[in-house]
């Protein structure tokens, strides 16, 4: 009897919910130009909390239906206009009336929206945020994703060959830049100089680059900044959006493709993408290279065994309802690439002779497979929002090389030199709390657990387990319209446990018994970080940011426990298990001004690091064959300062003269030297003309000429070589062709037009005298497709 009553109650309750869900509240508005009053059509209106997007109609009108009461915000973007964020509080059907958008000539601003971590506009965040989107990526192709990011002032890339690159922000990278995709930090043995970023460059819709301390949101490993890759989930509703991309690059005979499809209908979201690249040995404008005063040949001007292939797949399924949204994404990245034999141990003339094919990947080589399963949700709790991200990552990295013992030890079995399996379980919870008209707060909790297993006949780092927890609170206060103050505080706790590694060692052919290569480690770390910032807009077109922050970074496994040859750095590295966390005190300033015909931004920064960890040459030689000095991980206080600037002059419609530069200066108080691998002063200058070609057939087109340059780098560390400066020329052009309903996009670029021989101070192979790739013709064809469903 009782149970029957419960059942009936539930039926009525669910039915009641269903009825309420069907009715819901409505939000609508009309977009128009602030000056002319004309309606703005085809603008993108996006309701952030529910990941719902709408396109404004021919009269500028947009509508969202079935909403629950609460606070939301809309992002409104339209090419040629300044973006707007509108905060709304819905308790009944709401008509926003006319929303006015202001024209903007700035190419820099037309696409950026907000600092999505805190859901504010760029104006309202105290840190310098640069947003690049798919359009930018398509127009500025690069061999790798990190290589594309390096076109932004303040961002650089450390490269190993063509397919492997990782980003630096203001000259610092590795474990000092947190790269996040789908809201969670990417964990893939980032300490490795020759470990590239395991991201499908064709799957990137939008990247936020935050320069400056990022520990508040991400805890450790964001001391220099954050690269936040945000896939745009919101798709135009009731449409099947698909597309195919083909790309070809001549320098390494690269063929790439990417196909995707997705839809959002009746609250169900689906997105799938497959990508692949196959490339051959890359070409350099040099016939030989110098290894420690030995001149060795580069046969046919192609670096043997630098071929590779990359495969990517990703799938997202989700629900977008009026209570919010929840998605689950599975992605898989698989890279197999050869290492140039000249960079893997002492080069042998025979190893460097050309082999049967420029596409084969022989020993030495690497294979990386990165699997991610991530859930992202945003849910309404009363009037407020709760964001939760939870994920599992599996990074399986193998390096293969024919063992060389030089008669000093018995030959190991097989070719697997190093093998690492790193599993990471991580989660973030953020609660957005609107405390009043002028005050917003975010409370957050992060957790991460990592487990590393090792194998292979060589040793570099041992097995370890690490877990960390962080809790933070962040507030944003509107002092006046256009004046925002932000402040935050965070506490982190981490625990690292590493298992000691011993193996039989040999000296000149004789066993010297079991030697402990790395010790047991059982350590805890605690850290407090904080930030205080202001964003002031003294005029409508001027914004000043001031940010003071502290951040920290835990020592990595390699810094604590390494003891072996690391081919990526061409050195015998030895860690120190007693290293402390790095801490930084950071000050950022940035000025952005937008005028009628000229935009300008300058961002100086000044950091003081305590216990900065770096590799320092010791006064001993390594006893291992093929190694030079023994390099040890040490700590020292140091200075890190510099600036970036960017200027854009647009004298007439469609014509842009654009230039940017960056400079970084570091100094170690311990050694009196600079820190190693810091980028030289450099920048770019570009002239570009955009024009919408008349006629039905052709559309938006552009033609640009660009130069990228770097000064010689004299600010070096101990035993680091200086690098000469360079200037290279690039041409970019593109057009749209209206063959079918959707425009077919064509992008063409010639990088290093003059086939200049130049060296990149940040290339791992620069130390063996290998120059950067030569002339590269790049062609991409993009076919989008939209079908009503």
């Amino acid at each position, binding site marked *: 009897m009782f149970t029957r009553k419960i059942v009936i109650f539930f039926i009525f309750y669910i039915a009641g919910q269903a009825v309420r869900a069907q009715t819901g509240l409505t939000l609508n508005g009309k977009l128009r130009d602030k000056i002319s009053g004309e309606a703005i059509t085809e603008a993108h209106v996006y309701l952030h909390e529910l990941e719902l997007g709408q396109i404004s109609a021919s009269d500028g009108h947009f509508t969202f239906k079935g909403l629950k009461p609460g606070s939301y915000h809309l992002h409104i973007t339209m090419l040629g206009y300044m973006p707007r964020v509108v905060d709304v509080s819905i308790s009944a059907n709401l008509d926003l009336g006319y929303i006015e958008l202001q024209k903007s000539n700035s190419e820099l601003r037309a696409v950026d929206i907000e600092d999505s971590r805190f859901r504010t506009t760029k104006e309202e965040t105290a840190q310098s945020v640069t947003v690049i989107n798919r359009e930018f990526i398509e127009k500025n192709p690069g061999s790798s994703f990190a290589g594309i990011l390096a076109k932004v002032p303040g961002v650089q890339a450390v490269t190993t060959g063509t397919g492997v690159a990782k980003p630096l922000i203001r000259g610092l990278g590795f474990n000092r830049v947190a790269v996040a995709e789908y809201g969670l930090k990417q964990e893939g043995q980032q300490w490795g100089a020759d470990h590239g970023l395991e991201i499908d460059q064709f799957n990137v819709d939008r990247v936020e680059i935050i320069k400056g301390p990022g520990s508040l949101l991400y805890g450790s490993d964001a001391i220099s900044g954050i690269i936040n890759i945000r896939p745009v989930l919101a798709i135009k509703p009731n449409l099947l959006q698909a597309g195919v991309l083909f790309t070809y690059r001549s320098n390494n005979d690269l063929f790439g493709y990417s196909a995707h499809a997705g839809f959002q209908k009746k609250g169900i979201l689906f997105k799938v993408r497959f990508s692949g690249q196959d490339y051959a040995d890359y070409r350099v404008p040099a016939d030989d290279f110098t290894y*420690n*005063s*030995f001149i060795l*040949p580069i*046969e*046919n001007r192609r670096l043997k065994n630098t071929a590779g292939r990359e495969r990517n797949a990703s799938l997202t399924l989700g629900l977008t309802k009026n209570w919010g949204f929840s998605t689950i994404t599975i992605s898989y990245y698989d890279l197999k690439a050869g290492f140039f034999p000249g960079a893997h141990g*002492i080069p*042998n*003339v*025979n*190893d460097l*002779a*050309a*082999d*049967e094919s420029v596409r084969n990947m022989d020993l030495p080589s690497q294979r990386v497979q990165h699997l991610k399963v991530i859930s992202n949700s945003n849910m309404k709790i009363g009037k407020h929002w709760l964001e939760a991200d939870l994920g599992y990552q599996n990074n399986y990295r193998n390096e293969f090389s*024919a063992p*060389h013992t*030089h*008669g*000093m030890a018995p*030959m190991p079995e097989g070719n697997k030199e190093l093998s690492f399996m790193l599993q990471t379980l991580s989660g973030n919870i953020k609660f957005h709390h609107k405390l009043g008209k002028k005050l917003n707060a975010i409370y957050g909790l992060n957790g991460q657990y990592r487990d590393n297993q090792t194998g292979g006949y060589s040793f570099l780092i041992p097995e370890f387990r690490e877990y960390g927890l962080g809790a933070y609170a962040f507030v944003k206060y509107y002092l006046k319209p256009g004046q925002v103050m932000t402040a935050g505080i965070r506490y982190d706790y981490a625990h690292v446990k590493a298992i000691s590694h011993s193996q039989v060692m040999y000296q*000149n052919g004789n066993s010297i018994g079991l030697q402990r290569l790395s010790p047991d480690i059982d350590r805890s770390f605690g850290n407090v970080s904080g930030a205080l910032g202001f964003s002031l807009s003294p005029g409508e077109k001027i914004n000043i940011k001031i940010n003071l922050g502290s951040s920290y970074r835990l020592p990595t496994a390699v810094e604590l426990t390494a003891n072996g040859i690391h081919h990526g750095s061409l050195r015998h590295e030895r860690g120190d298990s007693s290293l402390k966390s790095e801490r930084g005190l950071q000050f950022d300033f940035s000025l952005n001004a937008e005028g009628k015909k000229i935009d300008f931004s300058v961002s100086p920064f000044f950091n003081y690091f305590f216990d900065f960890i770096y590799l*320092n*040459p*010791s*006064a*001993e*030689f390594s*006893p291992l*064959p093929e190694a*030079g*000095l023994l390099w040890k991980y040490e700590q020292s206080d140091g200075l890190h300062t510099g600036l970036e600037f960017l200027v854009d002059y647009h004298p007439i419609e469609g014509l842009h003269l654009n230039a940017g530069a960056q400079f970084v200066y570091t100094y170690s108080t*311990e*050694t*009196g*030297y600079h820190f190693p691998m810091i980028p030289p002063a450099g920048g770019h200058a570009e002239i570009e003309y955009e024009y919408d070609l008349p006629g039905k057939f052709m559309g938006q087109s552009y033609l640009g000429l660009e130069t990228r340059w770097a000064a010689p780098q004299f600010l070096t560390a*101990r*035993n680091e070589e200086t690098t000469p400066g360079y200037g290279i020329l690039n041409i970019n052009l593109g057009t749209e062709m209206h063959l079918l309903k959707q425009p077919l996009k064509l992008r063409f670029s010639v990088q290093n037009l003059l086939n200049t021989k130049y060296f990149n101070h940040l290339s791992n192979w620069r130390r063996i005298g290998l120059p950067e790739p030569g002339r590269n013709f790049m062609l991409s064809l993009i076919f989008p497709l939209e079908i009503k469903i």
Partner: protein
Amino acid sequence: MLHLGMKNKYVLFALLAVSVLYSCKKNDKEKPTYSFSLPGDSVRFTAGESIPFVASFFDNEDLSQYKIDIHDNFDGHDHDKYIAQIWNRILIENISGTQAEANLSIPIPDSAAAGWYHLTLTAVDRSGNQSEIAFRNIYIQNGADTLAPLVNVTSPAEGGSTNLGNSVFVSAEITDNADIYLIQTRVRRPNSASNLFLSTDTLSLGQSSYIHNKEIPTGGSAWTTGNYELTLIVNDSYYNRTVKVVNFQLN
């Protein structure tokens, strides 16, 4: 006149010494240098002899170590089956002061495989500055056997030709006073380093006489009409080597 008492003199000296030592560790950016006399480049030694090594090292502050590394410059084939052993030696010695001497006799084992070796020398000072690295080529011959194999290529004929698409048959008579170990057959276009054909055969121990036969197919897109170079490289177990080149044409 300022009279420094005994105690004050010592304190002053100590302060000076500390400041010198401190600045030495911190700001020494000069690399050590050296001079050494290995008679010229491309010196020949015999297994069982010693390499005389005499060198002087210099540094502005304080030397720490020098390292001599001797390793082979062979082609990286499977070494285990040779009678002779590829020799590798690393010598690291501690030194100190602003000047140091080395006077060594490095013995070459009797079983060392014949061939070209690299000798490298480098030094490091107390602050971690590494010197330039010096390279020398040295040739080691093994007294037990210094005779390279005899190779007589009977096919293809020098300057001969075959039709494109047909196989080229290689045949060679090989003899050695001791033991033939390895035969590499390779075809390239003249002045090219790309191998159109590459095959390496290793023989079992104890063969002093061998007929080498190899079929080289010339079908496929890599082959065109023109001139080609066939190279046969034969090593005996002491690493003595003979190279024979035969030119042929494809029509």
